[in-house]
């Protein structure tokens, strides 16, 4: 379930005016920005941008980019974009890093629905004049590349049907590949990148039933093996995305210093989806509320925005 609290009746014009006022003149009223944008869903945010453009002949996003800075600016920028456009930006940022953040590519391609992933691909083309797969291919190589390109180009069947016989045989194929450390990459890639999510979950369940341990456990290993890491991330995202996101949050806060990129990414991309469930999972596993952990580790306007997106009342 979503965490953000957006009223159903909203005046986009009024919102645009408030935001204008917040940005005009000396300094910026960040609290006003948070109190408006932090309580608007994607459809509403889009309307606000349109209203702002109409009223002031200016792109609200560009205005905010110039007014704000640091982690707060990055968070606001990601939050205000359309979900598909946002994912396209996240993907591009991840790919273009000196050492690409491959797990972000895996995350986007494996946790979004098939239709959402298509929308991301369209948005990516519109923004960057290349297909997502082209850019992924250009910045990766070997089996890792094959896996990633297949993940981003997948258009999985979205139905609930499960073929038990297939789940059995493919669980066996996966197990043989995992055991045999000398991975038959092709079959593993085929199964993980073409089967529907329901089918995959049935396969993973069958795997654990047959072998007493989850496939993710068996995929732990040499952290120098890039392919293995990417593969493991894909399986984790496909098998239980909430658990995956909880872990990302846990890791982003736990370290010396905070991984703001990861923290922002998860909160912003899940706030309108299943952040509530992820929060509950976090609480269960860490004996402390996510809001508390975030409050302790962040500060200022950045903190205020994150807490608002987490559902904290003003």
């Amino acid at each position, binding site marked *: 379930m979503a965490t953000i609290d957006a009223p159903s009746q909203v005046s986009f014009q009024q919102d645009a005016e408030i935001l204008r006022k917040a940005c005009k003149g000396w300094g910026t009223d960040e609290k006003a920005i948070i109190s408006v944008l932090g309580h608007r869903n994607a459809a509403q945010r889009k309307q606000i941008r349109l209203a702002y453009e109409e009223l002031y002949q200016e792109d609200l996003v560009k205005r905010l980019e110039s007014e704000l800075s640091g982690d707060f600016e990055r968070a606001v920028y990601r939050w205000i974009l359309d979900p598909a456009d946002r994912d396209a930006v996240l993907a591009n940022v991840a790919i273009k890093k000196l050492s690409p953040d491959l797990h972000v590519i895996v995350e986007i391609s494996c946790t979004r629905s098939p239709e959402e992933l298509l929308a991301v691909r369209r948005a990516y*083309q519109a923004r960057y004049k*290349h*297909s997502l797969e*082209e850019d992924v291919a250009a910045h990766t190589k070997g089996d890792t590349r094959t896996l990633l390109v297949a993940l981003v180009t997948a*258009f999985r069947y979205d139905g609930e*049907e499960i073929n038990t016989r297939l789940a059995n045989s493919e669980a066996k194929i996966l197990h043989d590949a995992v055991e045999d450390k000398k991975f038959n990459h092709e079959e593993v890639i*085929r199964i993980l990148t*073409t089967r529907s999510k329901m089918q995959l979950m049935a396969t993973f369940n069958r795997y654990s039933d047959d072998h007493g341990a989850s496939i993710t456990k068996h995929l732990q290993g040499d952290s120098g093996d890039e392919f293995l890491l990417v593969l493991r991330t894909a399986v984790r995202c496909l098998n239980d995305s909430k658990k995956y996101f909880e872990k990302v949050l846990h890791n982003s806060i736990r370290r010396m210093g905070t991984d703001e990129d990861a923290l922002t990414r998860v909160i912003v991309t899940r706030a309108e989806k299943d952040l509530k469930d992820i929060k509950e999972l976090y609480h269960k596993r860490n004996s402390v509320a996510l809001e508390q952990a975030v409050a302790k580790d962040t500060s200022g306007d950045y903190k205020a925005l994150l807490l608002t997106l987490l559902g904290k009342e003003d």
Partner: protein
Amino acid sequence: MHPWERDARFLKKALKKGPPQYNVIVEIACTRSSDQLLGARKAYHSLFNRSIEEDLAFHIKGSERKLLVALVSAYRYEGSKVKEDTARSEAKALLNAINNGDKRKIVEDDEVVTILTARSKPHLKEVYEQYKKLSNKTITEDLEVELLLKEMMECLCTPQTYFTKIFDAALRDNANEGAKKALTRLVATQKGGEIKEVATKFEEQIEERVKGAYKDVLVGVLAKEG
């Protein structure tokens, strides 16, 4: 029947018939626009409760699997923007793969498959041109041994050549059912200018050799607005 549904059914049938029909998969994946191909994939979901890539990957065991799965999964950028130096270096990479690798395994070469299935059509046309400068032959000539790859390059870069071959094979004296079916499929699914241009070259043969309803269809293509 909606074009997407028709394409989905063509793909299913081609997969069922096996290797001799894989060129149909190549034809559809390469001659449709990005959105048309996407539409065919959606239609496939609705009709068969599976994704096309699932079925292809599962049923094709041979060396063409990688290529065909990647081809149907493509959502190529459709803008005209092309980077000449990237095209040149990719032409070089392709030339290397063709010259140095085992010619029969080219269809499995990761670099080759990635370039040919991810890049936009305008970009590949540029790669085609750059390749000509580097080698004495065109890339389609050099790919003689690998028919599927050759047809793929034709469909992507010089579709006229591909269409001409189909017309020619179907309008010959000893044309078999398969050749005629291929032409029927082409005429039913390709629109406008490109196919009309090719059909015009065969006007005489259509007059002489074709009869009845089939002729009407072909004449109709000739008469169509481009």
